[in-house]
């Protein structure tokens, strides 16, 4: 009788303690450095009420649960990850009520081959996180068909529709993301927000 009562009490307590939680899954690119990756995890743990924070360094899968009553938005999560200096590639929220929210996939447009140009541009940076940020900056532009950045040579190999983009516009977008190019330098304030491993040597004028 006593044990039955105790079981009931325990079950009631657990049921009471369980708040509805939204589940967040973020695909983060460029987690090559454990100090940075664990830093992202650590910073999110500072969010009051956050639970089940998990990060898989190898896959870049970052997930956590957050009280549904706080209605944390997708934009706020993306912004927080970006503020921490990381590049969220895809975010999925499964709300406690079953609704799913996700980033809209990037639209892939057909580009006439005749208009495609290929360039090699110097872009300052250090590491895999830099690579993710640089490629994300280019992927947001219309008319980019291919992009690859080499951390050793610092060269960005990029193909684009010359009717929509130019070396200048691409360089500008990359500088806005925090990376110096020969044509455009990043704002000091943007550079300062980069994570520690991404603080490359600034290009001289």
């Amino acid at each position: 009788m006593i044990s039955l009562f105790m079981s009931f009490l325990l079950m009631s307590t657990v049921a009471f303690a369980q708040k509805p939680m939204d589940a967040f899954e973020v695909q983060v690119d460029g987690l090559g450095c454990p100090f940075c990756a664990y830093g992202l995890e650590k910073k999110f743990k500072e969010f009051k009420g956050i639970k089940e924070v998990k990060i898989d360094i190898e896959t870049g899968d970052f997930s956590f649960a957050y009280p549904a009553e706080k209605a944390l938005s997708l934009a706020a999560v993306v912004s927080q990850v970006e503020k921490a200096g990381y590049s969220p590639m895809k975010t999925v929220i499964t709300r406690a009520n079953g609704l799913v929210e996700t980033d809209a996939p990037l639209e892939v447009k057909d580009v006439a081959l005749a208009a495609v140009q290929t360039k090699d541009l110097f872009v300052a940076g250090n590491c895999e996180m830099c690579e993710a940020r640089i490629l994300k900056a280019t992927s947001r532009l219309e008319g980019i068909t291919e992009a690859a950045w080499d951390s050793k040579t610092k060269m960005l190999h990029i193909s684009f529709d010359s009717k929509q983009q130019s070396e200048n516009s691409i360089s500008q977008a990359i500088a806005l993301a925090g990376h110096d190019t020969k044509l455009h330098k990043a704002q000091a304030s943007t550079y300062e927000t980069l994570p520690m491993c991404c603080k490359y040597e600034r290009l001289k004028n």
Partner: protein
Amino acid sequence: MSYRFTFLRQSLGLLGLLILMGSCAKKAAGSQEWVLSKTISLTGVNPIGLAVLGDSLWLSDGDHNRVVAVNGSGQVIDSIVSLERPMHIAAHQGQLWITQYGSDTVIGVHPPSMKRDVLAVSDSLDAPAAVSFFGKEKAIADFYNHRILYFNGDSWLSFGKEGKDLGDFYYPTDLQITEQFIWVADAYNNRVQVFDKEGQFVKVIGVPQKMNAATGLFVSEDQLFVTDFENHRLLVFYHDGQLAQVLEQDLEKPIDALIVRDSLYVADYKKSQLQLYYFDR
């Protein structure tokens, strides 16, 4: 001579591994230098810190929240689990000391019993990345606070602040106390800084080499070993800062180094492996 180094030299437990290593060694002609002799694959382990306790080589595996002991084949033979992002580790007085980046603590574990003690410090830590002991002295690299906490046997001293100037730090990740100095891997200032035991700056090492994330170091009797993480190489310096050698063959994101009975061990985070070198005299 550092306690860590003395302890390691006295350790006999790795003899079998070293004999195996010697049999694999290829004799290189020419000057005195470190020569790669063996690579040990660590399946399922992404090593960060290295330490030897008794007969065993221990590695922190931060990605999997554990510290493991491995044998000469790289197989896990013992483990300490349920940790919170363990980083660099140290062996001292029969205990394995583990910095927990995720819980802001440093704990001592005695592997046979797995009893855990928390290291009492003078102030709160924010992501401790390394700990070192030398007799009664101890020091902690306090990563997000950009400082070193040092206990001289009587009292704690804090030195360093965030910055680029000499004496400042930008995310210190590893350190070692020796007879005279405290050596600090000032990771994202891409250098090693050396301090006296009053916390006063003495010298800087590694600036001309343009390191990209100096994540780990080891100080031997006459050399300093620094892992240049993003440049995928290990730099060997003399104590005066002169570059002695660059090791980069098959390295990808080396993160810590350690000498055990005259053999140099380098932990490779990305490749999940250990590289062993012998000194060709």
